[in-house]
């Protein structure tokens, strides 16, 4: 036998290796014979096969940070296992292992993607990183559901996607109860006209709308009487009944109310409400509602920042304006939480860095302390709702010490401003008729008033003469006098600046300090520092200031500080939102108009941006000699966006019209509004709300009353896909937008393929598309997307049968525009295309675009958006290169506001910044108005007067950990902050005999809740605070809340009637069960497996804690509907008065270290 030497051995092995295919196949069998004692889980691979990276945008909150998501394939399933920040994004900025720096800056946009991915990281807050629990949530619904019992019973059954679409369009029956549900077809007026044989439904609708406008003209004509209106309406009805009858239709089929044609068509009875909206779910849903012909595309803004928006809009004509965090040297940050407001926890890190290094002094005006130890972050412990007093005190000091920018304030018109190099003016010099008893009180004195012109130009005083503001370059600031009008009357007039000055000087600084609770020396220090740094000083204002009943006046008062120093639109000063690309209509029309959408008219159900005085209801009353006030509900012409309270009050009171169907998306007003439980009565009422459809990932406290549940996806799949513009101040950059594309394909049910072969998954997108196709709505289906006029695609049309056919074109719009702007290069590196095609799930649909557009899109996708640099964003004078948004006039006094009337009392609103205490919208029955109230700017009764037995203010705190209430699934965050409580000031606690751990009862005028107390000095005396984000009772699974009790008996009964258990088919929920076991265990280490296996059960962390919302303030002057801001209809969250007592029980905290 020949021996085996080394050579033979190696040769032999080589031969075996080459030929060993058959035996190699046996190796898996060997795995059963010899197996690891413990399963070996290798460390996460960072790169290589099976590892992908996607740059996209976070939705942990609304800041729109950039994220980089790592996906690893395990057992053939792509799984998200890490989320970090996007270093290209201006908020997240870049940090590298190789290079440690003190100040993070955003990565240059042209940095190769491979380098960015391997060497650079972006910062990201805890919510963003814990997004993994958002997508992998056992409570998620993945198939369509229909209720299988009365509304709110918690009984659901699975239906097919086809059945869902059919019933939503044609109507359905709840088999278990026999209820019939209407279909959207019943309200699709455009379709009815078309199906009846009108070739051009829009021609019919246009003509009808014109006729309605003619009726309104008659109604407004002072020389016409009631009979003229009545005749006009009858003529209208007769004409249109006849035309419609020829095609077998009646007026009642088309209009909501033939006797009230100003209310619009029946399409308006279909109402869309979204909670968390972002591009492009917003644009797409607006496209749907507009294509349906309804005016009711409504948002959650009242629950977000509407008081702040309305205040800004009144003042500057644009709703979102904030201080420049990059360069301001002094910032007054009022009502904004550190760790939340744009630029978010990540971008605000820059604020903190700058204060730590002495570059910035931040005055944190908030009843809750900033809890950061840093001598340049100074806590200003304000009394909630009384900020205007602080602002007035500062204004007084600034004017007294002449620390304002006189040159800027004296400019009366834009041409003069241009000469002096300012992009805007203020109307400080404009004259206002200031005779309280005169009908024109609050209006600008105009050329037509004096008979010196007829253009309606406001007048000013210059060199002792009264002139049109356009005719002089400089005018007097502090002027007051008597003038004779052309009518012969004499009136007092004052400049807007004088009115402001008089308000500021109506009290001493000490008196103002007494009102707002801030020491006078601190106020003076703030005013001095602010004006010393001018114009590189600014205000950052947010909810805590704006979401009071008097919120708009608070915001307006603060913004006077900015106006006085002339810091608008400049580096270090105030900035609006960054520019963005023409993502909606560069070459493809992805916008919500311009594709043949139906003509529409009428007020929205919540009466936002609509005047009561423009309605037939008003004029009919006036012409009949009746007092038109009160209207049934308030109208809000001055607000830029929508109101939760008024949506539901409108539906409930069928005012201004009845609702037919409500489609709601990603919203939870029952929980998120103050006293939102009031809305449940409306949601349960099938007569007032015949059809209720919810598009959602889980079934929350609002959606549990829906008739149909449409399963949706999270932002890591296809949820809110598209392009996100950034909010003010957008880190000061000229242009920035974050692009969101899927990290993984949806976990919801696959519903098939579109006619062009693309996969489709249950989601908001496909829901709208299928309804649009079924109803044959313009803008959907075959040729649904038109090419933009004047571009290569003019006259062409493209199909819209799936989400991809829409969103790829949105990216193409953005990319092509970015190329034209020189931000994306014309020659796209091959490596970028390869990176996207290798990593991004959306790349499989690239066939939708031509190659050149796809390549440009890859550049943007590979970087998670389009971003410019701060250093390139200002001109040589320090003004922003962005377009100036708004009126370009900063209103120190607003005639528009001064003319607006409270639609309950008929009283005019005060037209300028003013201190007024938080109060009801109107007088309260049984509560006498003080004489002062009858004259001044308070529309109703101050809350402190009505609720004298409630000495404390109850607020909530939102920080970097939780995202309002939709984040109780963030289990990694829960591990450090598992529960919440009520924070009570040390002195208040001492007085009440309360210690940390005592369970206390918090009573408000609308009810009570119980929670453990935490005693700290970090909340000001007189205020109690609840850290936000907990207290849920429904999230697909229902757990009856036991911690709060409504004061109202009917509401208490509703809560008591919540089901003990839900009945929901196992197949409809829980995508987590498909994950490998090791992932499930790692994600939910604190939970029993019953939480994430099969049909999930109640898991403690999803339902623990408290929220103050159910028992927050309602308005006794408006039927105890949730209290709102007067002008904007924002939810007045921070005006809840409360009292606290001990229950005698103690609470054992889950962790020893209390974090909030």
């Amino acid at each position: 036998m020949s021996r085996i030497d080394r050579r033979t051995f190696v040769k032999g092995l080589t031969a075996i290796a080459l030929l060993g295919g058959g035996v190699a196949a046996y190796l898996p069998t060997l795995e059963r014979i010899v197996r690891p004692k413990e399963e070996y889980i290798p460390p996460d691979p960072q790169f290589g096969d099976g590892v992908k990276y996607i740059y996209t945008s976070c939705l942990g909150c609304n800041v729109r940070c950039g994220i980089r998501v790592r996906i690893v394939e395990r057992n053939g399933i792509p799984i998200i296992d890490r989320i970090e920040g996007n270093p290209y994004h201006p908020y997240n900025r870049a940090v590298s292992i190789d290079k440690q720096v003190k100040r993070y800056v955003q990565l240059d946009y042209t940095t190769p993607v491979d380098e960015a991915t391997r060497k650079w990281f972006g910062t990201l807050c805890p919510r963003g990183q814990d997004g993994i629990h958002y997508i992998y949530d056992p409570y998620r619904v993945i198939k369509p559901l229909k209720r299988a019992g009365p509304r709110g019973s918690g009984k659901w059954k699975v239906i097919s996607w086809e059945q869902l679409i059919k019933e939503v369009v044609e109507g359905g029956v709840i088999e278990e109860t026999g209820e019939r549900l209407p279909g959207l077809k019943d309200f699709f007026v455009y379709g009815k006209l078309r199906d009846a044989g009108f070739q051009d439904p829009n021609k019919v609708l246009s003509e009808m709308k014109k006729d309605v406008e003619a009726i309104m003209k008659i109604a407004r004509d002072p020389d016409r009487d009631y009979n003229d209106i009545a005749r006009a309406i009858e003529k209208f009805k007769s004409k249109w009944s006849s035309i419609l009858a020829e095609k077998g239709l009646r007026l009642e089929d088309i209009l909501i109310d033939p006797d009230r044609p100003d209310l619009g068509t029946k399409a308006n009875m279909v109402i869309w409400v979204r909670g968390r909206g972002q591009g492009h779910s917003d644009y797409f849903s607006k496209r749907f509602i507009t294509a349906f012909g309804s005016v009711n595309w409504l948002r959650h803004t009242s629950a977000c920042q509407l008081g702040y928006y309305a205040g800004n809009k009144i003042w500057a004509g644009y709703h979102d304006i904030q201080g420049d965090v990059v360069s301001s040297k002094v910032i007054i940050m009022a009502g904004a939480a550190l760790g939340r407001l744009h630029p978010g926890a990540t971008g605000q890190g820059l604020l903190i860095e700058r204060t730590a290094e002495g570059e910035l002094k931040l005055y944190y005006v908030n009843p809750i302390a900033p809890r950061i130890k840093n001598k340049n972050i100074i806590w200003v412990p304000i009394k909630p709702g009384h900020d205007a007093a602080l602002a007035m005190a500062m204004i007084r000091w600034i004017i007294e010490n002449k620390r304002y920018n006189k040159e800027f304030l004296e400019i009366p018109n834009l041409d003069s401003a241009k000469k002096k190099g300012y992009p805007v003016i203020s109307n400080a010099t404009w004259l206002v008729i200031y005779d309280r008893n005169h009908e024109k009180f609050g209006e600008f004195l105009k050329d037509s008033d004096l008979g010196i012109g007829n253009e309606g130009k406001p007048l000013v005083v210059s060199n002792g003469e009264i002139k049109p503001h356009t005719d002089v370059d400089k005018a007097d600031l502090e002027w007051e006098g008597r003038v004779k009008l052309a009518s012969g009357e004499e009136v007092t007039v004052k400049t807007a600046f004088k009115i402001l000055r008089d308000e500021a000087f109506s009290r001493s600084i000490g008196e103002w300090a007494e009102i707002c609770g801030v020491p006078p020396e601190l106020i003076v220090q703030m005013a001095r520092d602010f004006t010393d740094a001018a114009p590189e000083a600014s205000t950052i204002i947010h909810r805590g200031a704006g979401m009071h009943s008097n919120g708009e006046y608070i915001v307006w008062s603060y913004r006077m500080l900015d106006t006085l120093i002339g810091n608008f639109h400049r580096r270090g000063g105030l900035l609006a939102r960054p520019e963005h690309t023409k993502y909606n209509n560069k070459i493809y029309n992805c916008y919500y108009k311009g594709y043949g959408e139906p003509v529409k008219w009428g007020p929205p159900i919540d009466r936002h941006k609509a005047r009561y005085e423009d309605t037939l209801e008003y004029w009919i009353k006036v012409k009949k000699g009746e007092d038109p006030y009160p209207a049934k509900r308030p109208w809000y012409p001055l607000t830029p966006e929508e109101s939760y309270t008024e949506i539901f009050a409108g539906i409930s009171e069928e005012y201004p019209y009845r609702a037919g169907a409500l489609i709601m998306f990603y919203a939870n007003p029952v929980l998120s509004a103050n006293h939102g439980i009031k809305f449940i009565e409306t949601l349960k009422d099938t007569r007032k709300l015949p059809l209720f459809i919810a598009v959602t990932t889980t079934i929350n406290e609002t959606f549990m009353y829906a008739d149909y549940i449409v399963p949706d996806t999270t932002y890591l799949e296809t949820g809110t896909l598209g392009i996100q513009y950034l909010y003010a101040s957008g880190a000061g950059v000229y242009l920035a937008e974050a692009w969101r594309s899927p990290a993984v394909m949806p976990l919801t049910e696959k519903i098939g393929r579109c006619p062009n072969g693309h996969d489709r998954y249950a989601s908001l997108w496909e829901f709208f598309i299928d309804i649009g196709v079924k109803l044959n709505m313009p803008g959907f289906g075959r040729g649904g997307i038109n090419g933009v006029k004047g571009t290569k695609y003019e006259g062409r049309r493209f199909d819209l049968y799936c989400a991809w056919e829409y969103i790829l074109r949105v990216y193409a719009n953005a990319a092509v525009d970015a190329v034209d702007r020189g931000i994306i290069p014309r020659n796209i590196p091959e490596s970028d295309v390869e990176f996207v095609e290798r990593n991004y799930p959306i790349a499989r649909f690239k066939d939708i675009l031509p190659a050149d557009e796809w390549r440009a899109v890859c550049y943007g996708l590979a970087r998670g958006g389009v971003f410019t640099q701060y250093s390139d964003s200002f001109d040589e004078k320090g003004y922003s290169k962005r377009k100036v948004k708004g009126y370009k006039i900063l209103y120190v006094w607003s005639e528009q506001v001064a003319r607006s009337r409270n639609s309950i009392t008929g009283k005019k609103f005060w037209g300028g910044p003013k201190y007024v205490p938080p109060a009801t919208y109107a007088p309260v029955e049984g509560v006498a108005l003080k004489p002062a109230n009858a004259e001044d700017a308070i529309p109703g009764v101050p809350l402190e007067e009505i609720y004298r037995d409630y000495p404390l203010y109850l607020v909530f705190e939102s920080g970097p950990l939780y995202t309002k209430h939709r984040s109780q699934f963030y289990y990694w965050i829960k591990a450090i902050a598992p529960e919440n409580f009520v924070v009570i000031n040390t002195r208040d606690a001492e007085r009440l005999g309360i210690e940390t751990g005592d369970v206390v009862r918090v009573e408000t005028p609308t009810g009570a809740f119980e929670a453990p107390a935490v005693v700290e000095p970090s909340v000001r005396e007189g205020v109690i605070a609840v850290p936000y984000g907990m207290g849920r009772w429904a999230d697909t699974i229902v757990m009856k809340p036991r911690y709060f009790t409504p004061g109202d008996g009917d509401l208490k009964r509703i809560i008591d009637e919540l089901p003990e258990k839900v009945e929901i088919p196992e197949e409809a929920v829980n995508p987590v069960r498909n994950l490998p076991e090791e992932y499930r265990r790692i994600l939910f280490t604190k939970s029993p497996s019953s939480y994430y296996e099969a049909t999930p059960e109640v898991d403690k962390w999803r339902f623990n804690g408290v929220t103050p919302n159910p028992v927050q303030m309602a308005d006794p002057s408006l039927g105890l509907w949730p209290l709102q801001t007067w002008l904007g209809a924002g939810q007045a969250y921070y005006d809840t008065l409360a009292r606290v007592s001990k229950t005698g029980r103690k609470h054992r905290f889950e962790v020893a270290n209390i974090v909030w």
Partner: protein
Amino acid sequence: MDHVSRRMIHMARARALMYTSIYIAISEVPEHIRLSAIDLLSNMHKELAESLAREAGRMRDLKARNHRRDLDPVARTMLPKAIEMCYSNSGYVVEEDNPDSLKAMLAFISKLIEDEAKALVEGRYREAYKLRKIQLRFINTHLKPLIEEARKNTDLKTLEILEDIIDNDIEYLKLSLVDPDKIDELFN
């Protein structure tokens, strides 16, 4: 990936196939599988394949407790437990009735080498190094002594050839642990 690593992956895959083939050849598996294993081994050493084909049944029955006459009787009776502990301490469970059988040992070594190959491919070099150390220790402590002693007690020709193979394998393992750069020389 460098040249040495590539060589080591090649060696690991080949060695795994070799030991697996020997294991299959002496196991009760479907005949066509056994024949393909023997066929493969014939490309390495014709006589090995022929003797395995003849002696498979007797090879299958070889156990350390019966043949390790180099150990005292008490120690021999404890061998099954000791070897099972060895598997466990290495992080494995061997589902063979007799942990001290040649079959079990061959299966264990095959698995170790297979895992070494995977680790090398995935860049887990420290893991691979650790696995080679375990192989060397096991072969020196249990596999080679069984083959040496059984050779003395039986007339199994296969054992003679196996002893040569294992000696070469030990040399390779030592080289790979101490001076891996010299692995290339094996192929010259």
